[in-house]
């Protein structure tokens, strides 16, 4: 009983921290309908600035103010440079854009202060509260107190001040608020700044417990996301409660098991259960139509001047170029065959994204995990059961299809952003828990695949890409593809046209998962030895980013984007630390200037 209380109390302290991070997320979401994945990075930036000023150079309070201000400035800059130009872009693009910002900030932190973890002293050492057998260290008490004070302050601000009320109202109807004489632009900027400042406070407070690394806030952010979703993305009180709940849950799970990834797996379960039973969260309200953001018409569309005659005759040109490139890669030795194989594999995942997101309009940030299901599945079949490769390929693809349909099930009830976050959490849970099970990979040792020459690996990946392209062409030109297009556009219309929306969503998830699974098998084959890191949540994000860069609505586009991302590391050989910046920078530049992706350059209708 004392243990139970002790774990609950420590959980509440951690939870209060998740709560203020979640509060920032929800504040921003309510004000702008953006779910910000760079939120944690703002906090990390604030903490780094703080600890580089204090205690060596300036007093605590000054360092605190400067640190929080640094976070807020990063938030406002993100609003100006990224979120505002993308106001009318699709949810998936905005989500990946904030992920790219996160990547860029972390890159900046590594470049400036190094990647090595650094321990920092607690900000408070006294008083340690002791009630009987329950001990509350001062740092945790401080976290609890500051979090509570900040949330009360925010609540009063939003209810009692004019601008606070305007911000709350703008969640309902931004246009109406602007018609009452408020500057929508200034409010949006304020919300971004305030939200980022909250994260910076959290970052500074938690750094003594977690240590300072460029990614230390990621852990906090995932839990805050879970809290915000559980409590309800539209409810500030809900975010608080959700954060506390997640903190207590985590503390108790850690008391029960030290199994790696158990917390992440539990978070996935809780988020999934809440979203399925009550999609608006425990304390949230059902969202009606999202408020209209600033819609800005693009004045010009950059496009290659290809004459219509050439365009018609150039149908087979991509195949020709692909064939020539393949021949060159094939004959240039093992290294390039490997690179080519990876590029072709990425292209297959691109095609799978095209089916799911481009055609059916469903979002997935869990494709890395689906590849993993394929890769580990085929590996286990080949090593444990001696199944021949082609059969293992098919079975593993089927397993990935089933997994994809399972993560697609929530799409019957939840849409857009919620679905994206659910699939992301699934990816994280798969990486940290499923793929590290002893049964799957012998904990973190990984799985050895039967040896195969690089050229055979390349050949198989080309075969798989061929299957994927054929399937995509077939689907997009027939009944199921059209049904997906209609439900992508308008689910009500789809139903009134007799389309079984749920069935076609499942079909899209299943097909996409099957192709991702096949790609996972060839990827694992090329690598030879796979660990859970090979199929990380970050891979999933890169996969989505490259598909968006190419142009989700175009088959040639997603393939071009995948090839570009596969080749980038080769161009940066010798300077690989720049790769994250190259990926994120390419992504941001492309979506800001070519909203339809690279495909916009040659596709006439995008």
């Amino acid at each position, binding site marked *: 009983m004392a243990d139970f209380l002790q774990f609950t109390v420590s959980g509440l302290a951690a939870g209060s921290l998740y709560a203020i991070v979640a509060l920032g997320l929800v504040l921003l979401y309510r004000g702008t309908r953006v779910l910000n994945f760079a939120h944690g990075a703002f906090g990390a930036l604030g903490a780094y600035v703080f600890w580089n000023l204090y205690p060596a150079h300036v007093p605590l309070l000054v360092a605190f103010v400067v640190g929080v201000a640094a976070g807020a400035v990063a938030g406002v800059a993100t609003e100006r440079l990224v979120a505002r130009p993308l106001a009318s872009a699709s949810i998936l693009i905005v989500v990946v854009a904030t992920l790219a910002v996160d990547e860029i900030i972390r890159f900046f932190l590594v470049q400036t202060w190094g990647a090595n973890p650094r321990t920092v002293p607690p900000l408070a050492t006294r008083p340690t509260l002791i009630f009987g057998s329950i001990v509350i260290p001062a740092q945790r008490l401080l976290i609890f107190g500051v979090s509570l004070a900040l949330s009360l302050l925010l609540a009063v601000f939003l209810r009692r001040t004019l601008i606070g009320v305007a911000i709350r109202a703008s969640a309902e109807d931004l246009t109406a608020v602007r018609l009452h004489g408020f500057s929508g632009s200034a409010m949006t900027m304020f919300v971004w700044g305030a939200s980022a400042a909250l994260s910076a406070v959290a970052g500074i407070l938690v750094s003594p417990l977690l240590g300072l690394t460029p990614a230390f806030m990621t852990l906090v952010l995932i839990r805050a996301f879970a809290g915000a979703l559980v409590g309800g993305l539209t409810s500030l009180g809900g975010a608080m409660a959700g954060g506390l709940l997640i903190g207590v849950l985590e503390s108790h799970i850690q008391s029960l098991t030290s199994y790696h990834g158990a917390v992440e797996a539990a978070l996935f379960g809780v988020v999934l259960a809440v979203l399925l039973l009550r999609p608006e969260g425990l304390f949230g309200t059902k969202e009606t139509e999202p408020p209209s953001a600033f819609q800005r018409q693009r004045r010009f569309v950059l496009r290659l001047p290809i004459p219509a005659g050439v365009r018609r005759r150039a149908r087979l040109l991509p195949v020709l170029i692909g064939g020539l490139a393949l021949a060159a890669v094939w004959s240039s030795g093992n290294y390039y065959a490997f690179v080519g194989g990876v590029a072709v594999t990425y292209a297959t995942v691109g095609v799978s994204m095209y089916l799911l997101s481009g055609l059916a309009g469903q979002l997935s940030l869990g494709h890395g995990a689906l590849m993993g299901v394929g890769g580990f599945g085929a590996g286990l079949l080949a090593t444990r059961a001696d199944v021949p490769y082609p059969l293992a390929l098919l079975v593993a693809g089927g397993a990935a299809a089933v997994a994809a349909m399972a993560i697609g099930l929530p799409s019957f009830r939840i849409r857009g952003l919620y679905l994206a976050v659910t699939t992301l959490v699934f990816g994280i849970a798969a990486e940290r828990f499923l793929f590290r099970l002893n049964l799957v990979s012998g904990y973190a040792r990984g799985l050895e695949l039967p040896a195969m020459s690089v050229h055979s690996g390349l050949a198989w990946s080309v075969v798989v890409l061929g299957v994927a392209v054929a399937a995509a062409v*077939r689907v997009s030109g027939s009944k199921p593809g059209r049904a997906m*297009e209609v439900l992508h556009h308008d689910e009500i219309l789809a139903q009134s046209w*007799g389309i079984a929306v749920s069935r076609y969503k499942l079909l899209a998830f299943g097909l996409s998962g099957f192709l991702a699974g096949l790609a996972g098998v060839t990827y694992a084959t090329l690598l030879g030895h796979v660990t859970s890191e090979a199929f990380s949540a970050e891979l999933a994000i890169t996969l989505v980013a490259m598909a968006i860069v190419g142009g989700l609505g175009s088959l040639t586009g997603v393939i071009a984007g995948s090839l570009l991302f596969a080749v980038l590391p080769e161009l940066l050989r010798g300077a690989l630390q720049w790769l994250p910046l190259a990926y994120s920078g390419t992504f941001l530049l492309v979506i800001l200037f070519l909203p339809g992706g690279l495909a916009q350059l040659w596709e006439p209708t995008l």
Partner: protein
Amino acid sequence: MKLDVADVSVRFGGLDALKTVSLHVPSGEVVGLIGPNGAGKTTLFNAISGFVRVESGRVELDERDITGMPPYRRAGLGLTRTFQHAGLVSNATVLGNLVMAQHAIMRTGGLAAVLGRGRQEEREVLERAMAALRQLGLDSEATTPVAVLSHGRRKLVELGCAVVRRPRVLLLDEPSAGLDRVETEDLARRLLDIQSNTGCTTLVIDHDLRLVRALAPQLVVLSFGEVIATGTWDDIRTNQRVLDAYLGPQPVNEELSSGAPSRAG
């Protein structure tokens, strides 16, 4: 195929959107549904097509109870509706929309199509779409994206999408909304054509009483979620309850009593 609505009630929170509404459209007939804004006309369409939950009562097609059936299965039975603001896939072409709209009448299954079946049917679908476009005079715009069409042309495309599905029961929700007079008259002619060619059972909502008069010999009048009158135009014109509770002011009354079929179409 006849349509029966029996004692249907729909509640939105504390609001009775429909109170024990009953109506009957005999097979092949056209019935007009009129009533002031907020009377529950579109809600009734939503109840018939399955987009709102019915609190009590039944909806039947040819005596088959479809009350709890999901909307897409009702569409599969031949129940077809249009929307006030042309329901179309705006980023697809006109022809694309007419092809997509035939989903419900295709025999090939979704998975079978992925595996390469049903190529013959694909050609039939395309031919039907082109035929419908020619009939509506839209063939020159076949490859135009719907988004760049005028509202009037879009309403016509939506009508094409409804017709190409071989509807057995047609629910038209304000077909003339946003159209000018010339466009409305053109639409009335086309609707009459469609009705006489296909003989489908039709329920039409419109505020343009001339259009309704041209199409529907029978009327149902809704007000505050209740049917306040049913009958022919003469019955309605002389119904004191309609005059008092709904039509009220003189100008509308005049239009109703002088609206002759010859002027509409």
